[in-house]
């Protein structure tokens, strides 16, 4: 399998705090890669570094063999890395439909003049886009509420909508930041199903999640981080039986500490 994303010795500091410490990571093409760790371990920071929200202090990031370190976020998105957010970041005053439409932004090849004159090209693109958006909405199961304002739809649907929006960008790599957080069992199951379907279309993923069942069911390789350091990697079963990981999550027994 080819590597789609490679993180080489990346370090990110905020003042005196080392948020990511000399991290190496690799995601294979077509793989769902899990990323777990206790709160504040630096998981979201890793995503922010990959997507160019933060600049790294040391190291570099390669995406399909190309160095993307230091590129602006919108360029990284154009290259094919899409992401969802831990705290939903949708356009609340816009409709469900328009939120998905924003995802197609990078694939839009229309000039301002085309828009103002409403040229044939503009009409054609708009019509194609409409069908495409409706397909995506159908796929994520939100077609029936496409004209609702996002601020009026329930939390669970917002989570799914973020997934639909990023799908419109046709990414090669999808970074999912706690997609199942706050969802009930039923919703979470449906979301896992959706993620698996997206993955079957050949989209690689990096999945951050606290819900262990969720990660177990989806992730191939799993990385565990704590205090910005990678403490384990391997299959989900391997890492969860690793004593270092268990101690990071649950702490160590008093006797063991003193022993």
């Amino acid at each position, binding site marked *: 399998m080819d590597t789609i994303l490679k993180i080489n010795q990346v370090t990110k500091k905020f003042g005196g705090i080392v948020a990511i410490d000399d991290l190496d990571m690799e995601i294979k093409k077509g793989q769902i890669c899990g990323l777990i760790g206790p709160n504040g371990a630096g998981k979201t920071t890793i995503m922010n570094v990959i*997507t160019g*929200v933060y600049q790294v202090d040391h190291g570099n990031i390669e995406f399909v063999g190309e160095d993307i370190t230091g590129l*602006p*976020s*919108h360029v990284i*998105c*154009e290259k094919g890395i899409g*992401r969802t*957010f831990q705290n939903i*970041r*949708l*356009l*609340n*005053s*816009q409709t469900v439909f*328009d939120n998905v*439409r*924003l*995802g*197609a*932004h*990078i694939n*839009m090849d*229309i000039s*301002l003049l085309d*828009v*103002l004159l*409403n040229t044939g090209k*503009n009409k054609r693109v708009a019509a194609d886009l409409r069908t495409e958006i409706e397909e995506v909405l159908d796929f994520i199961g939100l077609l029936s509420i496409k004209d609702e304002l996002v601020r009026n739809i329930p939390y669970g649907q917002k989570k799914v909508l973020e997934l639909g*929006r*990023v799908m419109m*960008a046709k990414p090669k790599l999808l970074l999912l930041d706690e997609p199942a957080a706050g969802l009930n069992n039923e919703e979470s199951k449906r979301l896992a199903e959706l993620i698996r379907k997206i993955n079957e279309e050949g989209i690689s993923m990096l999945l951050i999640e606290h819900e262990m069942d969720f990660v177990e069911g989806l992730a191939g390789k799993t990385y565990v981080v704590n205090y910005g350091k990678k403490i384990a990697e391997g299959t989900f079963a391997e890492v969860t039986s690793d004593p270092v990981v268990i101690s990071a999550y649950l702490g160590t027994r008093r006797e063991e500490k003193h022993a």
Partner: protein
Amino acid sequence: MKTKITDLLKGKFIYLIFGVLAVLPIIGLPSYQFYMIERGMQNALVVLSLVILLGYTGQLSLGHAGLVAVGAYSYGIMCTILGLPPVVALIISPVLTAIVGVILGFPSFKLKGPFLVVITIAFGEIVRILVLNAVDITGGPYGMKGYPVLFSDTAMHYFMLILVFLATFGANRLSNSYIGLAFKAIREDEVAAELMGVNVRKFKLLSFVISAFLAGLSGVLFANLTGYLNPDSFASDTSAAYLLMVVIGGMTSPVGAVLSALLVTALPELLRFLQDWRMIIYGLILFIYVRFYQVINIESLKKLFKRR
């Protein structure tokens, strides 16, 4: 079912406004009232420019009077000192203003909210003071006059009508396009916009450029309407008036912007009969309007026309 007049206007509120404006010269209003309508249309262009910048993109500018001044004075200077034909000046002035708009747009990369507002106020003041002191070119405090105008009264009215109509349609199309959506994404969440692939800086600049172009065009029309330019016409209270108009118009509605520009421009004149009380009542009306904005706004008006 009986067809009502409002049925014909379903979703076509915009045509009603422009229809009324189109028949005005035929009715033959007294010249002062007519002039106020013209000024309203000229203001409508600035308000549309603010709809794009503030309503869509969320960048608040209190320096738009400065941009209008750039458009007006460059028209005047091109016609007199450079001796260009008015039609050429009409085309170049808004383009020139758009370039100035780029400069005004740069601070928006790093500054948000009140900090950006302060910069735009400063911009407006810089333009006004430059105009005031460049006596050789602009006439400074004595003003500038004697430049040729494009059209006579009625022709000018229809010319402006066409421009405002086109600008309203353009703003509408922009709003529905992916460009408008990118603007709105910047307004609501810059980080999310950037991560969805929107080049935030590029689109902010684009918004400033389109906005400045319209403001510059409005400046040219101002120069044509008054036949006389004075720095006092472009003081910061004018920028505040534009802001008032865009807020009353509903911020994101181009039709609302036109309607609001016409009404708010005419209102102080309609209240002339109140004499000393005029400005107090004017303020009170605006105050009451903003208080009940949730109930009476352009959207509810449009719905009224759509429902029946």
